[in-house]
């Protein structure tokens, strides 16, 4: 009992207890929360962000394919494509495709 009394009365001990109450214990609580609860949430958030980025890339690839398809459709409807029947002897189709490739 005298030990506890001296313990209560010492300023150092009071300050130490106050420090522990204000600083250490909240830290401990937050630390435990981070480890136990936040880990799953962080992982979920990262996964959802990756999914969003993947979806953006998928959309851009889709739109690229759609524009390619439109271009192929347009080129196939050109009168120039009739040169296929003559085996493109004048190389007009080849030149057009080479120019398209350069673009």
């Amino acid at each position, binding site marked *: 009992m005298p030990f506890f009394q001296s313990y209560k009365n010492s300023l150092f001990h009071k300050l130490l207890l106050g420090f522990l109450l204000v600083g250490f214990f909240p830290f401990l609580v937050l630390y435990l929360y981070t480890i136990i609860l936040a880990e799953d949430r962080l992982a979920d958030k990262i996964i959802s962000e990756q999914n969003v980025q993947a979806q953006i890339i998928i959309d851009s690839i889709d739109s690229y394919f759609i524009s390619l398809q439109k271009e192929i459709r347009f080129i196939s409807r050109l009168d120039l494509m009739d040169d296929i*029947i*003559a085996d493109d*002897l*004048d190389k*007009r189709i080849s030149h057009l495709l080479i120019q398209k490739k350069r673009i």
Partner: protein
Amino acid sequence: MSKLFFLLLLSIVLHANEYVVIVNKDSHIETVSQLQLKMLFLKKTKIINDMTLIPINLNFSNNARSSFEKNILHMSRKKLKSFWIKQHYFGKRPPIIMRSSKSVLAFIKNIQEAIAYIPKKDLTDDVKVIYKWRD
């Protein structure tokens, strides 16, 4: 003097360019008139002797084309241009253009309904001639 004139005339005639209108060898068309050619290449008709035909033009810069426009169509380049602009609004487009006689011949060999013109010097045995003209 008259002999000289005759020789000069003969030389001009001999050097005059000759052109032929050709179709596929298996085509049923044997001959065609100038008027029919004009109607066909101005796309006023597609059918001659119960056969649907596909006219093929040569490139603008080709002499055969210029001769064809002058002697068969009887239309200047300018007049033809305005003709096709008007036809565009009716949904009609000018005939397919091939750049060379070689590609014209290849097209004719592959498409039975095709009809085209080339200089006589480029003619080969695997097509049929149905009309001739000279400059």
